[in-house]
């Protein structure tokens, strides 16, 4: 099941300019930019390369067969709360395992980080028990690349209506998506409360754009691939554009197990299993790992050698550390008239009034709220019914019948502080289907993260009540054991002792090895990382191009 477009093919022995490991949110941006800049590129992707016409709305099968995501049968993970606990087998991360990566199935929220996200530590001071730090780059360094990401990929939104919006050099390329009933109720209530709601920026095209069809409002963004190609993932954008240069080969079903070094400590390529389980070594002049914030550190740890006994590029000891999931808070209520939230994109209105929560409340954090319907028919049956209602039998059935189209949800997305114990490491005993040590996830939310999440939840309930919801209720705020946002595990910085990569995304330890994805982040923002991951990739492509063209790799 792979799209097999005409594309340039390279031999394993060809020493391509760049080998990119992972063809998702960031890897495919790098592949497109570097191949356009004249370099030869091979991008290895462990998942398949699907055509948009292969996407389905089959809610059960997409999940049960992991059609778009990592497969817990083949790729088991183990989980523990702290390093003192014994890790047990359970699914602990979800990520895109497909050409296009997690952006194929993401909800398409596309928020820029704000200026504060890059300088929080110096503004707020250090926080005991955390690795809270400033980024080596600022918002203004990244601003041109946010703009580039929005225009190259196609983002719908309305600039200049939120007083909290960071400065921008250009408006959005496309007008906002039409407002849904949840957006109307959310906006009216939030205004009444003195907040500043505005149209959600989303990576979905509201009008035809660059030859792509606009959104048909099918309602299957979150968790599904877009059969219209209207979701602005790299699949209908970066990937074909990279291939069209004639210098880029995308190689699906390629599961990388090791970055190889030569005797002088430079990367020479990567060893991967192909679709038939055969091991290959693809040679390259430089390697970029863009495998997401869980698989990137795992690959470095798997690539240990005599020179790097604790894992490749891990002289700092920080590879895999400071994992951040972000937090989610879910509140919902029902209304008198139908909202039909199953139609169209999940989120049309948001507020960012709580981006920086008042420090006087005694904890550190911030976040955003979005009127966001989380459910499809099956998932609503599992999560849409309040705990006060029976969960089976005729009352349950009646509740579902009455409320599916009358329910509105607000989701809060909050900060996660970087805690060193929260990490990706290799499991001692469990192996994956290729015989490699399984990923072990250690995670316990910082107490401030839970307080932030709870704060956001209270705001959601307040907005629901003000909007006239009949019975607002929320899920309990609990410590997380499953991550969708995988951030911070190979952080960037200027000091090789306290970071893994520099501001050019080059590892401090290996001159021709670069890392660029959610792992590069120093702080985790407010729960919508994709826009920043892709802006970083556009910027990294410029930095790496400049280094390569001046003989500095």
């Amino acid at each position: 099941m792979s799209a097999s477009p005409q594309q340039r093919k390279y031999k394993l022995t060809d020493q391509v300019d760049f080998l990119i490991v992972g063809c998702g949110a960031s890897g495919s941006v790098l592949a497109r930019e570097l191949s356009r800049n004249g370099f030869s590129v091979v991008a290895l992707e462990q998942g398949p390369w699907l055509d948009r016409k292969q996407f389905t709305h089959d809610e059960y099968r997409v999940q049960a067969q992991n059609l778009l995501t990592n497969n817990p049968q083949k790729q088991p993970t183990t989980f523990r709360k702290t390093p003192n606990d014994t890790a047990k087998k359970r699914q602990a991360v979800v990520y895109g395992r497909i050409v296009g990566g997690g952006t194929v199935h993401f909800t398409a929220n596309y928020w820029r980080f704000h200026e504060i996200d890059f300088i929080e530590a110096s503004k707020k001071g250090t926080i005991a028990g955390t690795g809270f730090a400033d980024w080596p780059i600022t918002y203004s360094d990244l601003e041109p690349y946010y703009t580039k990401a929005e225009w190259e990929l196609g983002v719908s939104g309305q600039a200049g209506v939120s007083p909290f919006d960071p400065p921008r050099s250009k408006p959005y390329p496309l007008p906002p998506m039409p407002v849904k009933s949840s957006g109307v109720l959310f906006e009216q209530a939030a205004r009444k409360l003195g907040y500043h709601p505005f149209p959600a920026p989303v990576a979905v095209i509201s009008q035809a754009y660059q030859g792509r069809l606009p959104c048909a409002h099918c309602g299957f963004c979150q968790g599904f691939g877009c059969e219209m190609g209207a979701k602005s993932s790299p699949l209908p954008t970066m990937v074909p554009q990279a291939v069209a240069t004639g210098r880029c080969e995308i190689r699906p079903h390629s599961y990388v197990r090791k970055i190889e070094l030569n005797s002088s400590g430079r990367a020479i390529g990567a060893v991967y299993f192909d679709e038939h389980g055969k091991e290959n070594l693809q040679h390259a002049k430089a390697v970029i790992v863009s495998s997401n914030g869980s698989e990137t550190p795992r690959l470095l740890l798997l690539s240990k050698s005599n020179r790097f006994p604790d894992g490749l590029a891990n002289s700092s000891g920080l590879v895999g550390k400071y994992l951040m999931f972000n937090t989610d808070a879910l509140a919902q209520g029902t209304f008198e008239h139908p909202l039909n939230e199953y139609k169209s994109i999940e989120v049309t209105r948001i507020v960012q009034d709580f981006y920086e929560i008042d420090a006087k409340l005694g904890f550190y954090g911030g976040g955003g709220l979005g009127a966001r319907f989380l459910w499809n028919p099956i998932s609503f049956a599992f999560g849409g019914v309040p705990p006060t209602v029976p969960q089976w039998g005729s009352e349950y059935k009646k509740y579902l019948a009455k409320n599916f189209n009358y329910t509105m949800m607000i989701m809060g997305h909050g900060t996660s502080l970087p805690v060193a114990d929260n990490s990706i490491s290799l499991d001692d005993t469990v192996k994956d289907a290729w015989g490699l040590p399984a990923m072990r996830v250690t995670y316990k939310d910082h107490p401030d993260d839970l307080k932030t999440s709870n704060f956001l939840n209270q705001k959601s309930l307040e907005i629901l009540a003000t909007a006239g919801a009949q019975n607002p209720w929320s899920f309990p705020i609990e410590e997380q054991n499953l991550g969708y946002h995988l951030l911070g595990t190979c952080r960037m910085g200027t000091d090789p002792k306290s970071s893994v990569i520099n501001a050019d995304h080059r590892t401090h330890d290996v001159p021709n090895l670069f890392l660029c994805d959610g792992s590069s982040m120093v702080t985790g923002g407010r729960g919508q990382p994709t826009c920043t991951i892709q802006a970083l990739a556009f910027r990294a492509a410029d930095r790496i191009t400049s280094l390569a063209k001046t003989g500095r790799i």
Partner: protein
Amino acid sequence: MTTRRTFLSQAAASLSVLYMTGITPDLLSQAHEHAKAAPLNLDGQPFRFFTPQQAADYEAFAVQIFPTDDTPGAKEANVVRFVDFALSEIEPHNKEDFAKALHALNDQAKKANPQAASFAALAPAKQTEVMKSMEKSDDFGILRAYTLVGFFCDPADGGNKDKVGWKLIGFKDDFYYAPPFGYYDEQLMNEQKEKA
């Protein structure tokens, strides 16, 4: 099942909207070709996972989750057929846990009613009691989960027959819509029109 022809005639109804957004019915039907698959009908074929007794026990359980009242329930949705297909074809790795859970259900039925031959043989009120006594258990959880999925899944997976689950909650599978989507955005749209 929506055929290509009926799909196009539905699309024709909102032609003007489609053209406004640059989507033609033909492009839309191409795009949705794979999003809408034909329903799977296994009626009359032998079970692959269940024994006939297990199928009867599980159907009795599923009917307690979604009873047939003034609207169709788990029986009409063909939940048992879905589970048989899902465990044989899609999730064979869950067979063991499911069989164990079904076993636990029967054990509990016999423990509470020593004369009972099986869970299915109990009177409905007794079945309810048995289920209540184990509703916090993982065994109950897995049995319930498969009923929920089988009731609301894509009919292509053998359950949700005739879309009875989707019809119950008001979910439509047109997969293309234009605003207004619901009551409150329609109200706003009308207010704005009046102002204009």
